[in-house]
């Protein structure tokens, strides 16, 4: 394996958290998922459980090939040509996800904050900053994530505290519970967990861990942390708007923060929100951008740095293409298409690979692995 830089458990955990938290901060797409009423917050624990289940094939694949990312595993298990195809497929997937995240980021800014500023401006400027971080490598990205995570966490907590101090949260809005029964909630939990593209990100980063022993704990912690904030945000939004009004808002949490008014003194504090939103967006885009570049470098054993700018120049126009406007963006990321698209990459392909590996009794050559380590 290439020397991609090492990250520690805490950094992995925080990267998962920030990246997953990104969407909930703004779009909170879960509001439109079945059951699409006041019960959507019940999805959260199920979301967490389904995430763990979806992680299973990736995790066991990693246990079998502790030094290999999924891009490399493909070549080992499925053979050269098929493996190469798989690798390319995954790199496309990472690029696509980075473009989606970028597009979501730009849509928000050019809708809510600076409507007259062109979309492309946000895309290019954020991509350049991301490229700068990707160029510095995984270690720097994860350190930046480590610095940003406390800021994001504290911002969310302050925001939620202020919203509740403004007296806008009415938890009566959460009732009646389970109006449509339990099944839609389970279905919603499953669909929403299929959104967890970070799982594949974890799988790509696991070989870079400096201590392999507690990887499981780091994954669970990251997912748990995300679920906690997911729950907090969902409850805040539902409590503030009620299910029916919340569904009408494009940016529910942002709108909740706009309502903050504590003692007619602390108001107009959206800046907190804009800060955590840009920081999270940066981390998410950078993470997937890095994974794409990193994956590319693994197809042919080379330094990843020559790929930084080319991949970046692909992502920018792609972010314009994936969503010509916000309605199409929301349509694509809604529960109808997006989860199934993700499911293919985060669950089906790894599961098939794992089964094939088990059947063909492929395992990583431990000697080769240790030799790589010493390099």
């Amino acid at each position: 394996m290439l020397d991609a830089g090492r990250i520690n458990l805490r950094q992995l955990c925080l990267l998962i958290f920030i990246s997953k938290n990104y969407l909930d901060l703004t779009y909170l797409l879960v509001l439109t998922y079945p059951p699409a009423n006041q019960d959507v917050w019940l999805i959260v624990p199920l979301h967490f459980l389904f995430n763990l289940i979806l992680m299973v094939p990736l995790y066991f694949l990693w246990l079998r090939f502790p030094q290999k990312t999924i891009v490399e595993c493909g070549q080992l298990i499925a053979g050269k040509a098929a493996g190469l195809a798989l690798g390319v497929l995954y790199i496309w997937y990472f690029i696509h996800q980075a473009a989606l995240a970028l597009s979501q980021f730009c849509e928000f800014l050019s809708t809510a904050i600076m409507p007259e500023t062109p979309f492309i401006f946000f895309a290019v400027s954020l991509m350049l900053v991301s490229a700068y971080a990707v160029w510095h490598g995984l270690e720097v990205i994860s350190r930046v994530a480590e610095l940003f995570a406390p800021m994001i966490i504290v911002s969310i907590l302050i925001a939620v505290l202020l919203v509740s101090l403004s007296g806008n949260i009415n938890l009566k809005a959460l009732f009646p519970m389970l109006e449509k029964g339990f099944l839609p909630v389970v279905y919603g939990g499953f669909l929403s967990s299929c959104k967890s593209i970070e799982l594949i990100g974890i799988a790509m980063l696991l070989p870079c861990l400096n201590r392999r022993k507690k990887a499981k704990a780091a994954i669970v912690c990251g997912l748990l942390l995300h679920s906690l904030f997911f729950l907090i945000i969902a409850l805040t939004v539902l409590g503030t708007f009620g299910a029916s009004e919340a569904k009408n808002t494009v940016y529910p949490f942002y709108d909740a923060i706009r309502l903050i008014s504590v003692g007619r003194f602390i108001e107009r504090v959206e800046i907190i929100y804009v800060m955590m939103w840009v920081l999270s967006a940066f981390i998410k885009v950078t993470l997937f951008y890095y994974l794409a570049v990193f994956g590319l470098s693994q197809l042919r054993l080379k330094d990843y740095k020559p790929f930084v700018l080319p991949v970046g120049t692909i992502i920018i126009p792609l972010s314009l293409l994936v969503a010509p406007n916000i309605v199409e963006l929301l349509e694509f990321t809604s529960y109808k298409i997006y989860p199934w698209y993700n499911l293919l990459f985060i669950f089906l392909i790894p599961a098939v690979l794992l089964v094939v590996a088990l059947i063909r009794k492929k395992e990583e050559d431990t000697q080769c692995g240790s030799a790589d380590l010493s390099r």
Partner: protein
Amino acid sequence: MTTNNHSDPLYPDHEWLATNKSAVQQLNALLEYAQQVEVFSKKADAAFRAGQWLKMLNSLKEEYQALEQQQYLLNPVYLTYANGIKQALSKEAAVNVNGLKAIFAQCSDLIIREFNLGATEQIPAALVMIEGMVDRGAINESILKPLLFTKYNGDINGTLAFIKANVLSVANIKEIRTVREVVDEVLAGNAILIIDKSDIALVSEVKGWESRSVEEPDTEAVVRGPREGFVETIRTNTALLRRKIKNPNLKIEALKVGEKTQTAICIAYIKGIVDERIVQELKKRLDKIEIDAVLESGYIENLIEDAPFSLFPTVGNSEKPDNVSAKLLEGRVAVFVDGTPFVLMVPYLFVEAFQVSEDYYSRPYYTTFIRWLRWFAFFTSTVLPALYVAITTYHQELLPQALLTSIATAQEGTPFPAVVEALLMQIIYEILREAGVRLPRPVGSAVSIVGALVIGEAAVTAGLVGAPMVVIVGGTAISSFLIPALSDVNALLRIMLIIMAGFSGIYGIILGFILTIIHQCSLRSFGVPYMSPLAPINVSDLKDVFVRFPWWAMRTRPRVLGGQNPLREKAGQKPKAQTNNN
């Protein structure tokens, strides 16, 4: 004239022509000289024959004198020194003295006191020193007087030993054998005794130049804590440090840097605490330096820092022995440079800018509060003007109603856009600050008062700038005084952020912030990540970042520095109230 000058009285015995290189150099010099003599004699001869010698007399005389003066070029002591050959001294005092004279030609501050030892024997000797760098009284009383009034026997080796043992009343005497050493010692401010028939010179340490006394430094003023600061003399500085840490494990290794200046520098560290790899790395970097002059530790800093293109300093400095001692005890390495009171310290981390030596002397609660204030002040002083620009030109909806009304009223009728106004004020502020620093003290304060009056009051009254902008710039300036270590970074970042805010509002500020953070996270100082213990987080080191734990709770040295002996104190140091049972 022949090229074989072995019989020349200037060159009695040439044992020291041991190395071929030296011999070749010598021969070349002789040849060149001989050729010049030959040319001259032919000229003179021709002049005689032509019968024009009367006309030529003056010019010939001048040429002859020049040739005579150039004879010192043939002095073996000079030759070896000039050609950079490490060579022993001559046994003949006259050769040595002439050589030194040649080396120090046109150096009016060199004193060579030639005298004879003893009343009867008459051994020629010379004392060499540089005026002003030696202690006159010590020379007269402890060296010359005993030398001249003592009786010696004839044995040369015996004499030297005798002088060293019985005559010179100086604390530090050493013997040196090479020309280079003699020159260095003379330049270092010592007196050199050269005795005929001995190729050993005696160095008496009688340094005594004028220097500043130890006083309270201007840069790191404290309310509570030691007042002493380093001075320009390296030995005084190392002594100040040694006085704080009375332990043989405090190692102070000496080096010389600077082709021309021969500046003494010392690396100080505490063996057993420091991470040896850092010392090795530092030595490696210092050894690589080849520069003609080192006049201040800033030269060294520039030449050894990790990120030469970064705004952020990766080498720290201090002017106070207590501060340096504390850093050494945490596992850092200090670099003393002769001629400056500023001592360098590596590795230097970002959080150190927010730690002040007084933090550790005061009680922890207020210190913690002040630490928070410093972080806040750093943040405000970098971001506030940019934020003001962004909010008033892009995001008015973020202003509370009352504030909006008063800012709008103040901005009404001002000619510049907010961003230009901010930049203008910022630059005027920097000019004022620089003027205040550079001007002589009394004028400096006058300038700052006039500047403040003119810029602040007049500009607002004239409607050139809005009053809120003046408030913002003033507040920013005061905030930046809280973190003097980063004030230069601060000013540059501030201007960068104002520009970014002027072009894309808060989004620009956040992008600038992210860029800065990425950059900071990518830095390392001597292998230690610059942003640690914040990124990567080191939980146990956080006890001295945003808060300052009481001493009984700060049991370990900073772990990020990778020291070998992390434990600083025994467990159970927390004071317990004694209940008096009697």
